[in-house]
């Protein structure tokens, strides 16, 4: 009697490699990505070659080209800014404030804002810029 060996079943494709790849991508996105609150309007910061690394923590005040304000992504009226910022600076130990102004924002909106923030007790105010590698064209 001839007994034929049953055909070997093809082993199922291993999913370990898939898990490895997914895990690497997960770690990559967790490390690289930032989850800052974005402004409710378009903000393209000015470019600069000599900017330093952005410190973490603190409060971000966004300023649109037309002078609209937002604190950590939430729109705020100009009149209410002082109160909101005073409460934040009083309630938290974070005294860093980032001014994220659009590059076309007129300085009559930006400079008084910096003075107001400083007067409210912010220890450090920084301007957000986009790093630039080539010399600026004027």
């Amino acid at each position, binding site marked *: 009697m001839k007994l034929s060996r049953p055909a070997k079943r093809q082993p199922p494709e291993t999913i370990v490699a898939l898990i490895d790849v*997914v895990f690497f991508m997960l770690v990559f996105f967790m490390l690289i990505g*930032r989850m800052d609150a974005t402004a409710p309007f378009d903000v393209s910061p000015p470019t*600069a070659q000599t900017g330093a690394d952005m410190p973490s923590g603190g409060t971000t005040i966004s300023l649109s080209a037309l002078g609209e304000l937002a604190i950590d992504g939430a729109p705020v009226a100009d009149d209410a800014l002082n109160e909101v910022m005073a409460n934040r600076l009083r309630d938290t130990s974070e005294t860093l404030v980032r001014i994220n102004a659009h590059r076309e924002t*007129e300085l009559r909106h930006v400079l008084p804002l910096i003075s107001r923030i400083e007067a409210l007790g912010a220890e450090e105010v920084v301007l957000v810029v986009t790093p630039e590698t080539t010399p600026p064209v004027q």
Partner: protein
Amino acid sequence: MQDPSTLALTRPKPPKALISLVPMIDVLLILLVFFMVTSTYLNLDMIPAVQRADDPAIADPQLTETAGAPMMIRIGSDGIPTVRGEGLAVPELETLFLSRLQDTPALRVLILPSGAADMQSLVSVMDAATRSGVTNLRVVRLEVAE
């Protein structure tokens, strides 16, 4: 009772299943999609605008003496920096900074921008000053008297 003419074949017990990886893969994929969607890839830097250490009250008086008269730069409403009435492009301004720094290493620079100038023009001037090696730089503004 078992009939002796029949042969009882018992199927071997299947091996105990390993812990299923499928739920873990599901969770990983959900996390992956979450981070991909919520992440932003803005590469941003910063320029210091206010630091308590900048307080004039604690400035070094000797340094202030050696710095001499400050160099005043105005920025017009068109965004062009002006030194003593002469409009300069940013590279020219940088050259001017370098030549002034050779004479006065502790050069003080004051920037007086027009309120109608844009943010980029101010940052460009501050950037040029920093590239040239200016360390004592202040931005001043005029306030309307009440």
